[in-house]
Every structure is written in structure tokens, then in C-alpha cells.
């Protein structure tokens, strides 16, 4: 027997509280062959359905088997210049998210967009895209989208709508009682339409409201600088970063650039390389907190006091130091952070999240200015689309007017405010008091139902538009396909209503820009703008503002707040954002990065708070889980995570919500994600989560200081992927500190001592030709899940639904493992994406009885779906548990419109076959053929990008030819941080990891385990 030694690092890695506590139920579950009843047939009712479906398909097979079906080829009638059937084309476009645009490239296959990539030319994408952008394809083909105009809940013809708009337009007069309610206007051409509308109807009002509003950020700027400025942090230039309740690598990032820039400062090639240091103070355990070198959990309402103390410790402002010097953990922390920031003047950076009050933002500006960071690591721009009025104030005024009957015509442009506006404004009921209410939206949602008219909106991939990046860089949003349901854009409806000079969306956008371009060159510049996805010289003017220190100090003064009540914090979420993506199955099924919950939201509480409230801290399978039935068999219908439910009361309004015990959550603080519990929605969103908007008032839109919480006698099944594929206690994930790595670069390799391993089958010669390999840099990865969705879109991976995820049947080819490190009270976390390792000596291959999985000469672990008979031996023998089995016909019955999402270069798998990561073999083959056609030239390094690599905002994934010593991947594999997961099994994985390093501060180091 080979002796494998692991070097104990003294750190404890765990995935859940149950694993940490080794509860009996968890141990039983862990030792089952397949996770959580994966091998049991589905319950009775759906089993009958499957049998019916099978009978039907056999019947069809019987009829059609004798004669081959006739298939038609329908060529074009007129040739299209330069168009080659079957070849994908890429067009530049943009998606607006969180109020700003990010440039994208859309892949179009024979007229249908199938994949989104980042636009490498766009300064806020640089080729990367996030989960919401990757999932936009599914949103476009969502069969539940609104398909026509509706009048009083009934579908009507577009002609009827056009006539009604014309009549209405003539009767508006001066615009008395006319109100427009839109989200933040981020499009210059739309702003022109808006301005023209308000000029024509001078008595009309235009209200802008976002559910995930930046009100406090704007107010903070106003307070500090006396004007509204766009703050642009430069995470790549900063050496020391302090994030105050700011999830700037996750949900608070408006574009992927913050991750891109931050990861640049974290790339360590040689031991001498510098690396930035990140401190995080937050109430919820975010992915930014997981990436942090030092993290302290703190109630969101205490951050104001924290920043005040920090300013005092830095001798910024003039406030008395209150806490520092008392020797507790917090004061020690402030001292150490202040010292570090002070020592890195001009190279430090403090950022605050949008949930924090204006005073915190103002103080952050003051600190950045005082430390000389302003102008270095953070710059300021004057926006051309500024909003002077606080959004909450504006919408509250609108609600007042509505309830008093002062509004005769209300035009709502997207945003679903009936669902997402503050609950005390009761917008859904107030809208009904308006004589003419019109809603333009993608779905038949809560607002569409409340309005007299609702109009199907065109998706951004099917309509003309334009939008600005955070720094003002303009991008034309090009359509990829004609509107599937003849939907209209918001600008188009307003233009029709107000008689704007241009009526078609294309004219509105084109004429706006060509008027700005130099005469004569306008056509050429327009074409360039479309091609590049960026309009040059459109950035906002940079300003060098001065902070009004006295005002800021005055605002931060009453820092001390009561710390007695239970705090409730609202956040957007990774699946539905503010509720708008609720019907997107890809996003719903993606496990939330930290809690690993899918298809639901839950009230996140810390273990200590759970104890205080009398809730079970070890939820997983303790409650409601029957380990065995009377005959000793596990009962699959009972398996799962049944958690306690609580009732939360805010201002007399109550909500029942399931509780999830989240290590790392601040004590006395509950986090509840917005955007779930939709009522008027498509079939995917039905029943997912609870509606946190029911507790969100205009008084406390982000942080409720004193929520009343009580346990109720109900339980709820939460489904997570947390334990799926748990691997035994081995150094799968290796991390160290920068200081240690510098002292002893071999520390990573030495974590595992393996004697020379001998294979059973002899070695294959992999020294010739292209040999594909991959590295994943755990130091760069922030766990944003973009790779998982990119892979899902590229490789036609189905979703399976909550019930099937509970059975361990999720299909993601690249999963994000999240491990907690250290103790339950103040844990750290590490992220690790795990795709197929493409082992050179793959254990899956030699157990396949039908040779459906074999090795290619280029080192790929090939999977031939049509050969697979579904024994699942391969999955059983895979030590990484990366193979996915089609337990059911997930793609059966896909609506016709949704079928347009499929990538034509990848087989759509059927029931009963195994699948897994292929290193995007379709992209490899495509490039190889292209290189062959171009005279058998060698393939350039970086020419082939896997889908996960291409979209990764952190550039953590690198793919290439390991036979070429100069390729990026070869160079990375030579690093001393490089290690193979489970390499002691002699699997010789082609995918290897670069270990995580934490750049710890020695003064704080002692406290962390």
C-alpha cells in the first residue's frame, strides 16, 4: 500500500455546519453511493407521467421506424452577401444592469442569438460577462414572455393599441395629470425622447425609480462634494482595499470590471510579486468577504460608527476617537486597518456599499481624499444623465398623487414597480385609481396586471438602443433578431405618445448619434460604432472635487445607534436580481455562492442568533429527515433540508420566511434577499422563495433597525447543492499566506507527499501535437458563477428543477465548491470551480463496458453520447464527481421558441446518457479545422478559449497547449502554486489549480485559525 502523507495545516475545511458537527444524518447521507436518493425513481405521480411519455414515444418510434422521416432543406430565396449557413457571426451590443451598460458580443447562429460573450473592446467588459448577461439568452427565448398588447387583461391586436395611443396622444393637452414612471434612464437617445416629451407636455412629470436604488450613493456624493459625481474605484491600482458592506466583487458590482481589476492585483507569478490586501466589514457573508484577506462580521447599522471610528483613528475629520484603545477585537481591527491604510497613502482605497447611508459614503470620500487616494485609486466623473431628485422621494410623491386621484394618465416603463416599490406606497392598488394606465414590460407581471394597458416590450437582444458605461462610454445596443412577438421598446412607446420626430427605434437611436458625429463622416462613424460596440470620445469629464469635511463630520456625528433590536437587511440576489430574472431557469438553478441554496431565498442568520431565537442550527436533514424506514431503506421523499420558519414583523407588516443558518453572518442581523415570491409570473418563477418587498418600506429600504422576529411552528424545504459531491478529508483545496509562500515557495507542493506512482496500464505518449490543459487560479477566483452559466449556455446543459436538485441530479458541468475554513464563529471561505479534470489516466474510462468514454490523442477525455448505455459506472469511479447523468429527459418538451437557445455545435443529450465537461471540444475542433484550412498553420496560444475561460471576469481560468512551453497555461503550470486535485490517485489531471494565497496582516493574523 502506498503511503500518502498529508501535511497538516491546522486548518479545518468544511462545507456545512452539519459536516462540522458530524451529525448522524449527515454521515448516513454522505456514505450513500449516490447523493440524496439520486438512484431512486421519482415519486408515483411523476413516474406515471414518465411511463406515459415513454409509451407515447415508443408508439411514435414504431410508426416511423419503417420509413425514414422526410426532412426538408429550406435555402434562402435571395442570396445574402457574405452569409455562410451554419457559421456563427458576432455582433456588438450592450446590456444595462444596475443602471449602467456593459458591452457584449452576441453569437448569432443562422439568425438566432445563442450565446453572449463580453466585448473585448469595451472598457468595462474587456471580454468578460457576468451571470445575468450570460443568462440573457434564456430570457430572450422565455416562452412566458408577454406576446401582445393587453387591454383590461385581454390580448388585443397591435392595431388596437396604435389607435388607442393616437387617440390618447391627442387628448393630453399640456400634460396635466400625465406621469411617466421609469427606471433610471441610462440611454442618451431615450433621454432625448424624454426631454422632448417633457417639453411638449410641460405639466407632466417623469419619475425614475429603481428597486435596487443608488439613492444613498448619490446623496453621499452630494453631501461630500456638493454635487453628484460618479465614483470610479480603481481596484487594480490599490494596494490596500477596505470594503464597508460593499460586495464589489459580487452583487454590488455594476459591471465585471471591478472583478477584472481586482484580480489583476491578486495575480502572483513569482514569489517576489506584490499582491493587494483586502479588508472586508460586512453583515452578510458575501463572495467579497470570502475573497478577503481579513474579514470582520458586523451589523450593517454599526458600520456608520465603524467608519467614524476609522476616520478618527486615521485622524481624518476631527471626531473624537471613541472605541480605539479599549483592546477589543473591533478596536484592534480598526487600529490595524488604519495603520495599513495610513502606510499606503495614495495606494489605499475605501469603498462602501449602496445599502449604507449617505453619511458613510461621504465619510469614505473624505477618507479617500485625506489619504491621497482620490485621483489615484479612485477618480470622479460628472455624469450627463444625473438624477437630482432622490428616487424614494419622487415615487412617494407619485403614490400620493395617485391616491388623491390627481393622475389621469400613468405610463410605466419597465421595472415592475407594483411588485418592487416600497410596500407602504401601495402602488398596485393606487395604479388602479388612474383612468389610463399603460405598462411597457417584458412579462405579464404584477404591474401589467394592475394596469389597464400592458404592452409587450422588446428584449434588449431584439431592439435598437444605446446606453452608457459607468464612465460615460457609449455603446449602441444592436438587435440580434427581429422582435419575436413584435414587442416595442420603451422609447418607441413614448415617441408614439408624444409625437417625437422619429418613431422607429432605429431612427431614434441613429439620428441621435449621427447628429453628433461630424458631418460627411456620420455614416462611417455610425458603422464603426456598431462594429466596435464603443463610441469613441464619449466618456464623462473627469473632475477633481474637494470634500466639505465639516459637513461630512456633522452628518456622521450621531454615530451611536441602538444595538438592541434585530436588524433586517435587504439585498439583491444572484438569481433574480430584484425579481426581474425570476423566470430564468438558469439563474434560479445556480446555487447562491455562499449558502448554495437554489430556487429559493431564505432569511440568513448566524448560528448564535439562531440559538438565541430557538432555531435549529444544524438544519440539514435533521428535521423531517427519516434516515431509514421500517424496512431499513432510506425514504427519498423525506430527504432534504427542512428548516425552521420565522415570522418577521416590520411596522406591523409580517412575512413568514424560512431560516438558513449561515456561518459568517453578523449576530443579530438577518439578511433577506429581494426578488423572490413573485405572484404574477411565468411557470419557472412560481413558488420560488418569499417576497421580501412585503417588508420593505420607504422609511427603511435597506436596513431595518428593529425587526420583530419569532419562530413559528412551520418548516420549509430548502434545497442546496452544498454537500453534493462532498470529498473526504484530503487537501483538495490548498491555500497559504503570501508571507509563508515567500519564505517557503514549496509550501503548496509539500502539503502532500506522494511516493512515485505506477500506473496499471503503462504510459501513453503525450509528447507530440497539441496537448490540452487548464489551470484554475484560486487566488483570482471570486466565486461569481459566471463560468457555470457560460458553460450551460455553450453546452446545452438543461435545468432540472428544485425537486431534482434535491435528489442530486443537477447538471452543471462546472460546479463551484465553497469551503468554510476555521471556526463556526468567524469563518473564512474558499471558492473552487471544479470541472472535469481530463485525467490522463482517467478512472472513468476503464470501467465503461461500452467504451463510450475514451481518450483522445490530444489528452481529452471524450464522451460519445450515442454510445452511452447509462450504466453510471464511470460516475461511480470518478473521484472528482464531475460526471452528470440525464436521469430524465430534461430536454423533452422544450417549447419551440426556447429551442432557439441551443448551440448547434453541441449535441442535445437524451435521457439515460452520461455527460460532462469536454473542454469545449466543439471550439477546439472548429479552430483546428480553421487552422488546417489556413495552410496547416499551428494553433496560436489563446486562440481557443473555453466558454468558462472566456467569460471569467477574474481571468482565473487559462486553457491551452501544455506541449508548448511558451503557452500561458504551461507557464502557469510551472508555478510553485500549481497542484493537481487528488493527484495522489495517479489520475494525472490535465486541469490543475494554483493555490490560494491570503495577503494577511501580521497584526491581525494571530486571531485567525
Amino acid at each position, binding site marked *: 500500500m502506498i503511503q500518502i502523507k498529508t501535511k497538516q495545516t491546522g486548518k479545518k475545511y468544511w462545507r456545512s455546519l452539519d459536516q462540522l458537527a458530524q451529525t448522524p444524518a449527515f454521515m448516513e447521507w454522505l456514505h450513500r453511493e449516490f447523493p440524496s436518493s439520486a438512484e431512486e425513481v421519482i415519486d408515483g405521480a411523476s413516474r406515471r407521467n414518465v411511463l406515459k411519455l415513454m409509451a407515447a414515444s415508443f408508439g411514435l418510434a414504431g410508426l416511423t421506424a419503417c420509413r425514414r422521416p422526410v426532412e426538408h432543406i429550406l435555402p434562402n*430565396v435571395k442570396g445574402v452577401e457574405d452569409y*455562410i449557413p451554419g457559421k456563427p457571426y458576432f455582433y456588438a451590443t450592450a446590456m444595462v444592469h444596475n443602471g449602467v451598460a456593459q458591452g457584449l458580443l452576441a453569437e448569432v447562429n443562422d439568425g438566432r442569438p445563442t450565446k453572449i460573450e463580453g466585448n473585448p473592446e469595451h472598457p468595462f467588459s474587456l471580454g468578460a460577462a457576468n451571470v445575468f448577461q450570460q443568462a440573457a439568452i434564456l430570457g430572450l427565448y422565455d416562452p412566458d414572455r408577454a406576446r401582445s398588447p393587453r387591454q383590461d387583461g385581454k390580448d388585443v391586436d397591435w392595431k388596437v393599441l396604435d389607435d388607442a395611443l393616437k387617440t390618447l396622444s391627442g387628448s393630453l393637452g399640456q400634460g396635466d395629470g400625465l406621469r411617466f414612471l421609469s427606471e433610471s434612464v441610462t440611454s442618451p437617445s431615450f433621454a432625448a425622447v424624454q426631454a422632448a416629451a417633457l417639453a411638449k407636455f410641460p405639466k407632466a412629470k417623469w419619475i425614475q425609480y429603481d428597486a435596487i436604488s443608488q439613492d444613498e450613493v448619490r446623496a453621499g456624493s452630494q453631501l461630500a462634494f456638493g454635487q453628484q459625481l460618479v465614483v470610479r474605484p480603481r481596484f487594480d491600482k490599490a494596494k490596500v482595499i477596505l470594503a464597508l458592506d460593499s460586495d464589489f466583487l459580487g452583487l454590488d458590482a455594476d459591471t465585471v470590471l471591478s472583478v477584472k481589476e481586482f484580480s489583476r492585483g491578486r495575480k502572483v507569478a513569482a514569489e517576489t510579486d506584490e499582491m493587494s490586501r483586502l479588508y472586508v466589514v460586512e453583515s452578510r457573508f458575501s463572495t467579497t468577504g470570502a475573497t478577503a484577506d481579513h474579514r470582520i462580521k458586523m451589523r450593517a447599522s454599526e458600520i456608520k460608527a465603524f467608519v467614524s471610528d476609522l476616520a478618527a483613528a486615521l485622524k481624518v475629520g476631527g471626531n473624537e476617537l471613541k472605541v480605539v484603545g479599549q483592546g477589543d477585537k473591533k478596536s484592534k481591527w480598526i487600529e490595524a486597518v488604519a495603520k495599513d491604510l495610513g502606510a499606503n497613502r495614495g495606494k489605499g482605497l475605501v469603498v462602501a456599499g449602496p445599502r449604507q447611508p449617505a453619511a458613510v459614503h461621504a465619510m469614505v470620500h473624505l477618507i479617500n481624499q485625506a489619504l491621497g487616494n482620490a485621483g489615484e485609486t479612485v477618480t470622479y466623473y460628472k455624469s450627463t444623465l444625473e438624477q437630482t431628485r432622490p428616487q424614494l422621494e419622487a415615487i412617494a410623491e407619485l403614490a400620493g398623487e395617485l391616491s388623491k386621484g390627481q393622475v389621469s394618465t400613468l405610463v410605466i416603463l419597465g421595472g415592475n414597480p407594483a411588485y418592487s416599490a416600497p410596500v407602504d406606497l401601495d402602488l398596485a392598488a393606487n395604479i388602479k385609481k388612474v383612468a389610463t394606465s399603460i405598462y411597457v414590460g417584458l412579462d405579464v407581471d404584477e404591474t401589467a396586471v394592475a394596469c389597464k394597458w400592458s404592452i409587450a416590450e422588446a428584449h434588449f437582444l431584439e431592439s435598437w438602443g444605446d446606453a452608457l458605461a459607468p464612465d460615460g462610454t457609449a455603446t449602441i445596443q444592436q438587435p440580434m433578431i427581429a422582435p419575436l412577438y413584435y414587442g416595442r421598446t420603451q422609447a418607441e412607446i413614448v415617441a408614439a405618445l408624444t409625437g417625437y420626430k422619429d418613431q422607429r427605434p432605429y431612427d431614434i437611436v441613429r439620428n441621435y448619434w449621427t447628429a453628433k458625429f461630424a458631418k460627411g463622416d456620420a455614416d462611417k462613424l455610425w458603422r464603426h460604432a456598431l462594429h466596435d460596440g464603443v463610441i469613441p470620445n464619449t466618456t464623462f469629464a473627469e473632475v477633481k472635487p474637494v470634500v466639505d469635511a465639516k459637513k461630512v463630520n456633522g452628518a456622521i456625528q450621531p454615530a451611536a445607534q441602538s444595538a438592541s433590536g434585530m436588524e433586517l437587511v435587504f439585498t439583491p440576489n444572484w438569481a433574480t436580481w430584484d425579481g426581474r430574472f425570476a423566470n430564468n431557469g438558469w439563474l434560479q438553478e445556480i446555487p447562491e455562492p455562499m449558502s448554495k441554496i437554489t430556487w429559493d431565498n431564505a432569511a440568513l442568520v448566524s448560528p448564535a442568533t439562531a440559538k438565541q431565537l430557538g432555531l435549529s442550527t444544524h438544519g440539514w436533514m435533521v428535521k423531517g429527515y427519516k434516515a431509514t424506514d421500517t424496512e431499513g431503506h432510506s425514504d427519498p421523499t423525506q430527504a432534504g433540508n427542512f428548516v425552521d420558519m420565522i415570522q418577521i414583523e416590520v411596522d406591523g407588516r409580517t412575512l413568514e420566511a424560512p431560516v438558513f443558518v449561515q456561518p459568517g453572518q453578523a449576530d443579530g442581523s438577518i439578511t433577506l434577499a429581494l426578488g423572490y415570491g413573485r405572484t404574477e409570473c411565468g411557470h419557472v418563477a412560481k413558488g420560488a422563495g418569499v417576497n421580501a418587498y412585503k417588508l420593505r418600506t420607504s422609511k427603511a429600504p435597506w436596513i431595518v433597525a428593529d425587526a420583530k422576529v419569532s419562530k413559528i411552528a412551520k418548516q420549509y424545504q430548502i434545497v442546496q447543492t452544498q454537500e453534493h459531491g462532498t470529498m473526504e478529508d484530503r487537501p483538495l483545496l490548498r491555500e497559504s499566506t503570501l508571507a509563508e509562500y515567500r519564505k517557503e515557495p514549496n509550501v503548496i507542493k509539500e502539503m502532500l507527499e506522494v511516493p512515485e506512482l505506477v500506473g496499471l496500464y503503462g504510459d501513453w505518449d503525450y509528447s507530440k501535437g497539441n496537448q490540452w490543459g487548464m489551470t484554475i487560479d484560486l487566488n483570482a477566483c471570486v466565486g461569481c458563477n459566471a463560468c457555470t452559466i457560460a458553460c450551460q449556455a455553450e453546452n446545452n446543459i438543461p435545468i432540472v428543477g428544485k425537486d431534482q436538485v434535491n435528489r442530486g441530479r443537477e447538471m452543471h458541468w462546472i460546479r463551484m465548491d465553497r469551503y468554510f475554513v476555521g471556526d463556526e464563529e468567524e469563518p473564512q471561505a474558499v471558492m473552487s470551480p471544479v470541472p472535469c479534470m481530463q485525467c490522463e489516466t482517467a478512472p472513468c474510462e476503464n470501467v465503461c463496458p461500452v467504451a463510450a468514454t475514451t481518450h483522445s490523442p490530444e489528452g481529452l477525455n471524450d464522451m460519445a453520447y450515442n454510445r452511452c448505455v447509462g450504466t453510471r459506472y464511470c460516475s461511480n469511479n470518478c473521484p472528482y464527481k464531475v460526471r452528470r447523468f440525464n436521469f430524465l429527459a430534461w430536454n423533452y418538451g422544450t417549447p419551440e421558441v426556447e429551442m432557439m437557445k441551443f448551440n448547434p455545435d453541441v449535441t442535445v443529450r437524451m435521457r439515460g446518457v452520461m455527460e460532462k465537461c469536454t473542454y469545449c471540444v466543439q471550439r477546439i475542433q472548429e479552430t483546428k479545422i480553421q487552422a488546417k484550412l489556413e495552410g496547416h498553420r499551428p494553433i496560436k496560444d489563446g486562440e481557443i478559449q473555453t466558454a468558462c475561460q472566456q467569460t471569467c471576469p477574474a481571468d482565473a481560468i487559462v486553457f491551452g497547449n501544455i506541449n508548448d512551453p511558451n503557452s500561458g497555461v504551461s507557464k502557469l503550470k510551472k508555478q510553485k502554486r500549481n497542484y493537481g486535485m487528488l493527484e495522489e490517485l495517479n489520475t494525472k489531471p490535465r486541469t490543475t489549480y494554483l493555490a490560494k494565497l491570503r495577503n494577511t496582516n501580521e497584526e491581525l493574523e494571530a486571531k485567525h485559525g
Partner: protein
Amino acid sequence: MALIFPKTIDQYVRIGGALVAVMALGGIGAYVYFSHPLVADTGYSPVQPVPYSHKLHAGTLGIDCYYCHNTVFKAAHAAIPATETCMNCHVRVKPQSARLEKVRNSYATGEPIPWIQIHKLPDYVYFNHSAHINAGVSCVSCHGRIDQMMEVKQVKPLNMGFCLDCHRNPAPNLRPVEFVTKLGWQPDRDPEEMGREIIAAKHINPPTNCSGCHR
């Protein structure tokens, strides 16, 4: 106890058993035979909506395959020509012919002509025309003498064994690229030897692993 069945029943049981066995074997044999691509797919020659004769156009008139199937050198698909391509000539040639009515209708209305697909590979096979044509595999290797067919007929089984025969030994099916669309072309020397020379010159190394064709 008395016997329920007389002894003579034995022989009927034996004969019946043998019959069932023969029928079962015959059934399996018939299934294997009739479902084999050689039998099931070769010879498939559906009636096309327009009675287009490859024999006339490609054979007698000598129009190059590439004139109509114009993406074959640069893309996976050998595109079926647009109606416009037919009309390039037929606005002048036989502009009134009754047989061309569907073509003219298509051109006028914008409705494509519903050609029936003959050579069809399963969905999990990703065949690329450009990779083969540029290597010097002639159209004739898979499609036969199209230039002699009034109505196109599948003449090769196009099953995996057919593909692999050539992928394992491509030499007999290779020719200089300029002759790939000349279906009747014969080399003036040993075809095997010429094939080997092309393999060496172009580094031809056809894949025989799964992901070469299945993705």
C-alpha cells in the same frame, strides 16, 4: 395421476418451439439486415419538388458543383443554393418552362423551395465539408456520380464504418484539390501512391477518436 396431455403432444411442442426459435432468429436477422445503413439508407431517392437533373446540369452542361454549392470549401455545410442562383440562368434559359414554375414562384413570393434532404447524418455527428474537400476528398467519395444521376440517390451507406474506413486509410480517396469536383477524374498513375504523397504534403491525419466527429 392420469396424464392431462397425451404423449403425442410432445412433438408438437418441439415443432412449435423450433418454429418460435426460427422466427425469433429470423426476426433478429431481418432487423439487423433491414436496419443496416447499407440497406436502409442507400438507394434513398425521394421525389424532389422541382425535377432538377444533376445529370443535365453537372454532367451534360458541365457546371461545376461549386457554382451552386458555394460554401463547400469554407464551411461545414455545402449550402443548398438560393432560388436566386437558379434564376441567374433561368431568367433567360427556358424562362417559360412549366417544370420551373415552382422556382419562379419561389423567386417571386420569397417562399423557399422545400428540397428534400437525401444525405443525412445523425444529429450527434458533426461533419465538416471544408475539412474534407480541402484535404482532397472528392465529392464522389461520399455522393457517387451525381453528374450521372437524373434524380439524386444515396449510393454510399454513410454509416460510421464507412467514415472510419477512410479515416483509417485515406490514401485511396485523396486527389489534388483542383480535381475534387471533377467526379469522373481518374489519376494517370497509381492512386494509392498519389494519395500517400498528398498525405505527406498536407500532413493529413484524420481523427479516429470520438470527439473528432461527436461533440
